[in-house]
Structure formats: structure tokens, C-alpha cells
């Protein structure tokens, strides 16, 4: 790059004009500045001199105070807007991620619900009830629809959800094969039942594909992490607001103090008005922000936590229901029923602990009694299976419409947890949505207030400047 520098040059007297330099045609090429190395262009010096004059003396000082006041007010516009928007967006993110978490949990719930219906129907040796078949279809349809919905809602989850969707296609194919062979009393049906189970629950360890549930669990963990991150981001907004208060109010107060010292006039109405506007917006903003955050924190500590426990309890309950049917299937065919029964015990224990937390947090029964009733029925059927397998299988496949049956007692648990789930899901959504509207209004109000305060501040300084003319 070529750089032209100006050499030292004698001061140019006022009124001096640059000589016209002839062009190639001999005619003057017009007035232009000849840059000579080491010399400064006179206009720069003129501008600097003018600038120095502008900020010299009392008027200059007043102008500096005016600029400081305007900048302080613009901080209110920009940083205030940022602070309110940041909290609103963080709460919106928390709400969106919580919604995604609920969606993914519901996918997992629908899958284990479908599996519990399939395995229970399998016990009926091909005479699966129409209610069971319809329930299975509905659960699969719901899971499939939610997978698409969740992928659209969170594109970053789409890839993992596509893999779950692939797994669902394979799972339903194995279930269809198991059912078809079971109808013919072909023992290969247990092979397909085992395949379906691995496609659902395979932990991806040695020799296993990663099943749909572990993949969904990863997504749940990710979503929960994003909710936490959004809460952290939300708290950052508090610091932004504090910065705005310090700079805007501090700046305006400092300007007024220095103005009073310089002019010996203690009240400048426009500046005071600016300060009041700033204080008003920031004060109201702080209250709204704190209120929104408190509400969001409450949601997280209450509804959100309860929701997580209810959702996990439901997933564990359905898993235990599948394990119950598989235990009975294997008691009849010679599979690993002990492992299945162990799974039942582990899942019901986990469900019970989760529901205990729910009961403590929501001060309601939350399905614990129903869980205990179902466990008692389960134990009775298992005891019967030891002496009379066929009667036990019959008892285990009785229609859920009979409240005294094994399936009936599980249906009661389903109903109790379903009510709790819906109530708390709605509560989380409402709680995280509540503060967002006022915060967005405040963010635009901060811009407007900042601009009005800036104009008012300059007007206040201009009053004093006028007195010096």
C-alpha cells in the first residue's frame, strides 16, 4: 500500500489559497491540495482548533456534560433493552426447552406404554383384546407424531430423533412378526419379542444396538441441560440491568452535580426529568424482572420438578408393566424370568420413590396408593403362576375395565399419574410464559425512555449554554 505523508510545512496564513496547478493541457486542473511529505493539511488543524474551542471554557465544559448525559441515556436505551430482552429470551428458551423435554418424555412414555400393551397381549396367546390392539396403535401413532413435532421444534435434536424413528419402524415390524407367529403358536415369536425389546431398550453395550429409550434418555438429559443453561442466562440479565442503573443514573447524577458546581444553579428540570424517567423505567423493570425470575424459579422448584418426577414415574411404571408380562411369558416358555422380575422390582422401586417426591411437593397422593395396589396384585398373580401358570396368564390378561384385575389396578395408576402430569405440564408452561410479555414491553420502553431522556438531558444543558451566549 502506498502511503502519502506530508513533510513539515510552514503555517499557512489565513485566506491563503492553493495555487492552481496546470494540467496536461496547460489549463488549470482545478484547486486541489498538494500533499507534501512532512506537512499537515491546514484543514485538520482548523478542525482541531475548532474542536478545542468548542470544549474550551465553561461552554465547552457544559457541552461535555451534555454529551455525557446523552450517552448515559443511550446506555439506558441499548443496554436496558438488552437486559430486558435477555431475560425474556432466556425465559422463552427455558420454556421451549422444557416443552421439548416434556415432548421427548412423552415419546418415551408412549413407547413404553405401547410395549406394555404388546407384551401383555402376547400373554393372551394370540387372543389379544381389541382394546389392547387399539391402545398399542394409538400409542405408536402418538409417538410417531411427537417425534416429528419434536424434530421440528428443535432442529438440533432432529438427527437423534430420526434414529429413534428408524428404531420405531423396526420395532413395529418385530412386534408384527411376534404377533403373527404367536397367533400360530410358533415359538419363534419369542425371538421377535426379544428383538423388539432390544430395539426399545438395548443399552448399546457390547453386542447391542442402542435402543430407542436410551437415545431418548440422552435427548432428555440434553433438554434438561438446556433448561438449566437458560436459567443461568436469565440471571445474566440482572447484571446487565445493574450496569444500566449504574451508568445511566450514575451518569445523569454526576452531570447534574458538576453542572450545579459550574453554574451555581442546583436544579435543571430537564435533567431531573431524564433522571426520573430512567429511574422509573429501571425501577419498574427491576421489579418485573425479579418477579419473572422469582416466578420462573418457583416453576423450576415446584411444577417443573414435580413434572419430571411424574414423567419418570410413568416411564418406570410402564417399563415395570412390560417386565411383569415378560416375567409371565418366560415363566411359561423358559426364558430369563428372573431378570425380568428384577427389572419389575427396580422399576417399581424407582416409580415409588418418584411418586413419593411428587406427593411431598404437591401435597397430594399422586398415585402412590395405586402403585402399591398394583404391586400387590402383581405379587398375587406371580404366586399363582408358580402353581397354575395358565390361570395366572389368564388373570394377567383380564380386561382393564375390571378394576379388581391386574390390568385394572395398573389402569388406576395410569389415570392418577396422567392427571398429575397434565396439570403440572400446564403449570410449567404458564409459569415460564407469564413474565415474558411485560419484559418485552419494557425492553421497547427502555429504548423510548432512553431517547426521550437523552433529548431532555441535552435540552437541559442547552438552557445553560444559552446563558453564555
Amino acid at each position, binding site marked *: 500500500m502506498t502511503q502519502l505523508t506530508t513533510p513539515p510545512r510552514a503555517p499557512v496564513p489565513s485566506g491563503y489559497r492553493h495555487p492552481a496547478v496546470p494540467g496536461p493541457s496547460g489549463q488549470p486542473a482545478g484547486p486541489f491540495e498538494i500533499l507534501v511529505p512532512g506537512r499537515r493539511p491546514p484543514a485538520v488543524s482548523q478542525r482541531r482548533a475548532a474542536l478545542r474551542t468548542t470544549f474550551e471554557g465553561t461552554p465547552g465544559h457544559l457541552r461535555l456534560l451534555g454529551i455525557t448525559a446523552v450517552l448515559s441515556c443511550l446506555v439506558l436505551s441499548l443496554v436496558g433493552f438488552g437486559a430486558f430482552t435477555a431475560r425474556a429470551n432466556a425465559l422463552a428458551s427455558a420454556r421451549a426447552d422444557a416443552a421439548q423435554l416434556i415432548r421427548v418424555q412423552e415419546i418415551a412414555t408412549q413407547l413404553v406404554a405401547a410395549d406394555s400393551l404388546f407384551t401383555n397381549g402376547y400373554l393372551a396367546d394370540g387372543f389379544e383384546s381389541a382394546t389392547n390392539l387399539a391402545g398399542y396403535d394409538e400409542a405408536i401413532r402418538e409417538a410417531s407424531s411427537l417425534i416429528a413435532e419434536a424434530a421440528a421444534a428443535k432442529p438440533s435434536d432432529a438427527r437423534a430423533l430420526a434414529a429413534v424413528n428408524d*428404531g420405531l419402524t423396526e420395532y413395529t415390524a418385530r412386534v408384527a412378526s411376534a404377533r403373527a407367529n404367536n397367533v*400360530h403358536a*410358533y*415359538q419363534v415369536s419369542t425371538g421377535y419379542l426379544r428383538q423388539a425389546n*432390544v430395539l426399545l431398550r438395548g443399552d448399546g453395550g457390547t453386542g*447391542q444396538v442402542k435402543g430407542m429409550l436410551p437415545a431418548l434418555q440422552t435427548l432428555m438429559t440434553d433438554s434438561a441441560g438446556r433448561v438449566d443453561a437458560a436459567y443461568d442466562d436469565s440471571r445474566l440479565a440482572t447484571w446487565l440491568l445493574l450496569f444500566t442503573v449504574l451508568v445511566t443514573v450514575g451518569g445523569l447524577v454526576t452531570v447534574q452535580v458538576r453542572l450545579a458546581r459550574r453554574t451555581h444553579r442546583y436544579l435543571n428540570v430537564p435533567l431531573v426529568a431524564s433522571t426520573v424517567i430512567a429511574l422509573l423505567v429501571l425501577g419498574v423493570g427491576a421489579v418485573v424482572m425479579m418477579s419473572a425470575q422469582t416466578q420462573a424459579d418457583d416453576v423450576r422448584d415446584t411444577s417443573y420438578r414435580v413434572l419430571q418426577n411424574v414423567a419418570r414415574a410413568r416411564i418406570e411404571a410402564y417399563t415395570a408393566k412390560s417386565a411383569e408380562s415378560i416375567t409371565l411369558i418366560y415363566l411359561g416358555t423358559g426364558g430369563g424370568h428372573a431378570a425380568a422380575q428384577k427389572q419389575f422390582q427396580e422399576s417399581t422401586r424407582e416409580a415409588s420413590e418418584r411418586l413419593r417426591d411428587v406427593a411431598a411437593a404437591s401435597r397430594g397422593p399422586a398415585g402412590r396408593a395405586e402403585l402399591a395396589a398394583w404391586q400387590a396384585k402383581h405379587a398375587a398373580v406371580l404366586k399363582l403362576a408358580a402353581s397354575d401358570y*395358565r390361570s395366572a396368564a389368564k388373570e394377567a390378561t383380564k380386561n382393564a375395565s375390571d378394576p379388581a384385575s391386574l390390568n385394572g389396578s395398573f389402569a388406576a395408576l395410569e389415570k392418577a399419574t396422567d392427571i398429575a402430569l397434565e396439570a403440572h405440564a400446564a403449570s410449567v408452561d404458564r409459569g415460564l410464559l407469564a413474565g415474558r410479555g411485560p419484559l418485552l414491553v419494557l425492553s421497547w420502553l427502555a429504548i423510548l425512555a432512553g431517547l426521550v431522556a437523552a433529548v431532555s438531558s441535552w435540552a437541559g444543558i442547552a438552557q445553560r449554554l444559552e446563558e453564555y451566549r
Partner: protein
Amino acid sequence: MSVTGRPPTATTARGLVAVLVTVLAGTTGCAAAGAGPRDVLGAMQGRQQVEEAAASVAAAKASRSAATASGKVASECSPSQEASFPPLSSLPAPGKAPAGTLAAKITARGYLVVGVSGDTRLLGARNARKSGQLEGFDIELAKALARAIFGTSDNRVRFKVITAGERFALVNKGADAGGVDIVARAVSMTCERWKSSNPVEGALFSAGYFTSDQRLLVRNDLGVKSIQDLKPGLDRVCAPIGSTSLAELAEHKFVKPVAAEIHSDCLALWQEGRVAAITGDDAILAGFADQDPRAVVVGTPMDTTYYAFAIGRGQEDFVQYVNAVMETPAFQSSWAAAYATYLKAGLGERSFPAPNYSRPLSR
């Protein structure tokens, strides 16, 4: 078919876990046993790929060759695996078992507890079309035993569906302790099982009641007549993990062994086209062929196994009792009827195996 002589190479294959399967998650294949607690139903995969571990197969083959050449196995397996204890010189009349014997305890109890399979078609399986009742060749033989003990089998047999892994533990435990009196579950007599002092790994055996050959199940439209006909693309052969059938595949280097947790898993993989063939005892393969009209059992026997009733350790008198029952025309008539009902269509004509009673009593 001889019941006393068998190829030495086949004998040496016993107990060799010759194939190490490497499962590539996300493709196809089968899984190792011992999966995590969440793995309720086992480790079979929807999409898996199992490849043989060449080194392990080579090691198994080398071990097998060396043992065969030295005649080590023949000397270790004496008496031969199919040899049982001599039968009682005279079988007591039903209900008259000598006091103090297991047969007398069973008589006093009023029923015989038999460990059986619930999903091995034609041998022991629940028939969902018959209210889930157990039926098969092994089931009928167990009833024949009950008839000898009680004079009738009606309400005198309690079947307990057990897994392959439970069979020795439960029979050694005994029915009065929550186990079973006897196991009729296509149990192969092997030297290791005779000798093992571990109650989970071995037991005593009656005389063999059936000889089953290890063969191949393939699709009937492929023109495959033996394992040698398998070619690239049709070279994946399934067998249960830890089975002698899987070990036997090590002899055929062009075959890619695929391990499944149980036999039914192999049939599911075969129906899905993920393996070209299944290897195993032809009595079991006949049960598979009965579930799929495209299946045919082919090939010359790669190995021979001897099915016998498993009886708890310390119950030599009951082994002798059972062997005496098996000598009776009534039992052999029941055998013939059961064979004709369940296995003849798939395996052709076979006769009751000649017994080998050359195992000396310990007392």
C-alpha cells in the same frame, strides 16, 4: 446308528467355546450373554453383525486337532459320555418303590416334578392353540416315567418350565427344595457334565433316550445340501452362544458363525434373511422346520449328541430306577408313539437307541 461309538473329532468339540463373536452394534447379529440389568429379554439385536474372530477359531481348531491326535479325549472320557449306570435288576411295581429311595419319596409325594422346555417345538413347548398346554416328545416321555412310578400319569406330573441354564441347578437341588426330580429337556450327556462337581454345570444321566445329529437348517429353494454348499453371501450360520454347535462351526473356515442367545433368536434371524442357515441338533431343527414351510434340515451329521434324563447327583438309585423303566416295553411303546407323533415327519424313521450301561456305580 451306533450309540457307543462316535467320531473322535466330534467328542473333542465338547466344551470348546471355539468362536468368539464380535458384534458390531448398529448392523446385524447377536449379542453376548450377561447383558445389563435393563436387558430384560436378553441381548439379541434388531440390527447386528457378528463376525468370527479368526484367532479364536484357529485356536479352537488347533486345540481340537491336538487333542484328537493324542487320543487325550478318549482317555479322559472313560466311560464314554453316553454310558449310564446299570438298571435295577427288577423294576418295582407302580407305587412300590423301595423305601428310602427317591422313587419312594416321589411316590409318597404323589407327583413327579419334571423340568422341561416351554419353547422347544416338538420336544417341549406350550401350545397356545391348546390352552397353553405343554406338549412334545420330552413331555410324553416324562408322562411315561410317571406311569411307571404311579401306574398313571393323570395329575401325577407337574411340569416346571425351566431355562437351559437352570436345568442342572434345579435337578441337583431336588423337588422338595424347590427344584425338580428330573429334567426332560433335550439334555445332552457329555463327559464334562458327568464329571463336573459344580451343581450348576453337571448332573447324573439316565441311559440315552434319543440320538440327535448336528445338522443344518436352510431354505428349501437354495439347493444347499450340506455345509460345504454354503458360499459367500450365504455363509452366515447361526447357533446359540456357548453351544457345542457353535464350536463345531470352527471346523468350517468358510462359514461365518453368528451367535444368538437362544435357538428361537436364530430362527427369527433366519426368517429375516440375516443368516443363511442355522445349525443345531436335528430334533430342534425339526421343530424350526415345523414353524416355517420354507425350511428344510439338510447335511450329513457334523456331530452326534445323546439326550438323556438329567437326575440329581447322589441319586444313582433313581438313575437305575429310570433306566429300568426305560427297558420296559410300556416305555418303549410310549417312546415309539411320541416319536411318531412329533419327530418322525421331520427326521424320518429312527429307533430307540441301544443303551450303554457301562458306567460303574460309585458304591
